């Protein structure tokens, strides 16, 4: 009887240990993705549909948040914030259409692409919402960002920002 209890306890402990290890791996993946994104901090210049755009990325809040600002000279340039939320990397986009979609990031196995999938949105979606964002890391001074917006009827529109570091 005692050996049975001991065996059961051992199984429970091993299961808990395996679960904890798995959780640590997931957290570590999100942290790694966040660190890779934070390495982009600086000022970037590039083009979108042939139009010149500037992007700045700034690590803030004691390293707990990364702020992304797109500057195309218009009044509607959006802000995007990145932060860790337990075991996931979150993106919150403060959109010029007035809503705030959130997305969850997932790094590709080769570590070259970080894709953000839509999670949820606060605010009205009558004018559509940002749906999907992909960062592709080319080298420390060159990356691309693909921004995809879902119109109110679900049709997607977007394009790729090709960015080179200036600072």
């Amino acid at each position, binding site marked *: 009887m005692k050996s049975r209890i001991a065996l059961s306890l051992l199984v429970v402990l091993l299961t808990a240990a395996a679960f904890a290890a798995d959780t640590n791996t997931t957290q570590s993946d999100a942290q790694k993705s966040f660190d890779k994104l934070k390495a982009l901090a600086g000022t970037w210049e590039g083009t979108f549909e042939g139009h010149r755009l500037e992007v700045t990325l700034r690590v803030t809040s004691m390293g707990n948040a990364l702020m992304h600002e797109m500057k195309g000279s218009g009044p*509607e340039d959006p802000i995007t914030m990145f932060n860790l939320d337990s075991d996931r990397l979150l993106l919150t986009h403060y959109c010029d259409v007035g809503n705030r979609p959130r997305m969850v990031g997932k790094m590709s196995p080769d570590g070259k692409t970080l894709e953000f999938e839509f999670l949820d949105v606060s605010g009205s979606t009558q*004018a559509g919402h940002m749906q999907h964002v992909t960062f592709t890391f080319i080298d420390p001074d060159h990356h691309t960002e693909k921004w995809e917006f879902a119109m109110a009827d679900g049709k997607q529109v977007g394009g790729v920002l090709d960015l080179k570091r200036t600072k």
Partner: protein
Amino acid sequence: MDREWNDSQPIYRQLRDRVVAMILDGVLKEGDPLPSVRNVAAEYRVNPLTVLKGYQQLVDEQLVETRRGRGMFINEGARNLLLQGERHKFLAEEWPRVSATIQRLGLTREELLQTPADGQPSNPAEKEPKP
């Protein structure tokens, strides 16, 4: 197109409305190309993604078509389609408010018909304030 934007609705929708007004006013005719995204973004100082959204809205409304490698063009029948839509929108959304104001002020049909569209009295003497 006016370069000023307001906060009442997203800029891409204001951009859509301006293109619609240009089609209705005959500034843009059926078969005409739309200015490039790059040019509109530069000229009106907006994000190119905003212009793309505005243009996509026009495509979704079947007012504009994309010709691969050539750009976007005003569809045949776009003006009629717009007139139908804009008339319906005016009668459903704006007319009830205008009609209520006319009744509240007791304006007669004759007074309305005699008043020019700019609201200014046709008799210059009426413009001068009386001492």
